[in-house]
């Protein structure tokens, strides 16, 4: 195997919450708990899980929009985790992010041309004319018109804005794009367009994606490998098709069984696994295996013994005492 483009080694992110007079009595929330994985150049990795499982936090840690509490983030062999904002700047162009909310991620007070030129200007990519040309190029690539440069974000629809967001992410020719639920805020009809755009771009530009989503069907469509997160930890990881076909972890099973499929007979309903109870609070996670209170196959052992992520097949890992 070649050196991975990105390698996360036991990355943790915790923050304190609460307003106790004495700071040490505040709760510590482990949003991301010792997560490790690798991505090869050209690969697409999906991060899935229920909302609040830490997948977005992980995504922001990987781009170092958040500081990391512990662990290493090796990008092309360089550890980004300890770097200051200033020291990070040379690496920024290589890792870019597409945001979930196309309304919030574009400054309403700036014109589209300005927004797209911003990364180029900041990193001194060429003269004014060259930047203008590049902006036109980007607009064209994401399916917008050249004269849109003079417009403001509020003049566009959600789908169009997400295209602008993608164009901005692509402006610096990144090697890795982290897409944080890029379509979940959009109408279903538009979702397909954006997904197709992302797929096209990957093909044309040879991009590497980390694709964060709670919508499994989109993940299945876009990614080769998938990691399933529960309460800040990865519980299962493997090739997308195998994970979807034969999930090893009971939580993955439950997630996949919940995906609605066109099934006029209603036969699949019987197989659907209903999880009981709410997702526990990350500030006070259950002992042992975090999943045990909701797990249909949990046993005593799970209460105090936390399973580690271990290989369960070729290129597959799961964190369950009972995964085969």
């Amino acid at each position, binding site marked *: 195997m070649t050196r991975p483009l990105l390698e996360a080694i036991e990355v943790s992110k915790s923050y304190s919450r609460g307003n106790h007079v004495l700071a040490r009595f505040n709760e510590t929330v482990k949003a991301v708990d010792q997560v490790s994985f690798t991505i090869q150049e050209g690969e697409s990795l999906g991060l899935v899980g229920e909302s609040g499982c830490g997948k977005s936090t992980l995504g922001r840690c990987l781009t170092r929009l958040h500081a990391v509490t512990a662990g290493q983030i090796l990008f092309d062999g360089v550890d980004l985790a300890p770097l200051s904002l200033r020291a990070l*700047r040379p690496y920024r162009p290589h890792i870019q992010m597409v945001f979930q909310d196309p309304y919030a991620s574009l400054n309403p007070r700036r014109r589209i041309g300005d927004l797209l030129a911003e990364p180029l200007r900041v990193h001194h990519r060429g003269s004014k004319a060259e930047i203008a040309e590049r902006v036109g190029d980007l607009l064209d690539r994401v399916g*917008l*018109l050249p004269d849109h440069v003079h417009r403001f974000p509020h003049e566009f629809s959600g789908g169009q804005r997400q295209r602008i967001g993608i164009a*901005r992410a692509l402006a610096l020719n990144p090697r890795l794009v982290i897409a944080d639920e890029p379509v979940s805020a959009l109408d279903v009809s538009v979702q397909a*367009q954006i997904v197709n755009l992302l797929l096209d771009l990957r093909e044309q530009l040879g991009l590497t994606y980390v694709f964060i989503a709670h919508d499994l069907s989109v993940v299945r469509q876009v990614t080769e490998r998938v990691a399933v997160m529960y309460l800040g930890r990865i519980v299962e990881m493997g090739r997308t098709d195998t994970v979807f076909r034969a999930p090893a972890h009971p939580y993955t099973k439950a997630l996949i069984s919940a995906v609605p499929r066109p099934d006029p007979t209603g036969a699949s309903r019987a197989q659907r696994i209903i999880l009981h109870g709410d997702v526990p609070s990350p500030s006070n996670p259950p002992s042992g295996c975090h999943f045990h209170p909701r797990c249909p196959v949990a046993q005593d052992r799970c209460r105090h013994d936390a399973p580690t992520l271990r290989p369960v097949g070729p290129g597959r890992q799961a964190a369950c005492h009972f995964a085969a």
Partner: protein
Amino acid sequence: MADTAAGLTVSPVVARPALPARGPWATAMAILLQNRAAMSALFVLLCIIAACLAAPLYAHQIAHVDAFQSNVDGEIDIDGTTVAVLEPNTEGLGLGVTPIGPTGRFATYWLGADSQGRDVFARLLYGGRNSLMIAGIATVICLSMGVLVGITAGFFGGLIDTGLSRLLDILWAFPVFLLAISLSVVLIHGVQLGPLSFDSGSLVLPILIISCVYIPYVARPVRAQVLTLKHSDFVLAAIGIGVPSARILWRDILPNVMTTAVVFIPLMMVMNIGLESALSYLSVGVQAPDASWGTIIEDGQGLLYSRPWVALAPGIAIALTVLCLNILGDGVRDAFDPRSQVRPG
């Protein structure tokens, strides 16, 4: 939220063609310009300002009076009879001196004289000039300082934020009149700010005082807004691109704060005019012989029972100005505050 333009077809997508490419500022201005009430208020306001600016013209060319010199022994000619501007009472024990009342003649003591025999109408115009100038400059300073402090606290966070926020808490809890009066009492003797020294009676002092007092009113909302903006996706996006902090502040945060500031302008004007007049009324604002609407009300207070117009006129002037500013302020808020755009109609 429906993506109305493109339907299901894939690229290229055509943006909504109806609206011309107008920025939020231009849009807001357009909305404001269409607001008839606000525009009428603006017109009246401009008339008041013009009249006040013309104060020297009126005093020297029309009334031929000096609004700042005592005219204790002055005499004027009304319909051929010579009348003293300050007439000692002759009835009974002959106590007291009464200034001449409104003459009804525009060019001679139209609103009468004050207790120093000065032309009240000329002073009203000069006073308006000071009142408006003080309120205006104080608004600019207060907004700039408030925005600066709010942004500094919100953007840099940490100890700077804690320090500034606590300071703002203190100023906020300090009842505003008490703060203003306390400051005035100290500063009114003159103040030395590094190489600059302001003598007592200088208009700079009330301006400084009034600017300081309302800083928390601007800084606190601005800080809150900056905190929201700082954690907004578009600022995160800029960080992700590698935009330096200073540039984020300048290009992404400041323009968004500016709308808040614009909405604040008429409100601050109203508050500053009110505070200026109150301070001057309590004689810790504009100092004699300079005039402001507040000082004229104070002068008139001593003549309220015999010559009520001395106090009535500046009060009406303040009320009218504030009324216009309030209406204009409503218009500006409707035009610039995104929250109010939710409201149709």
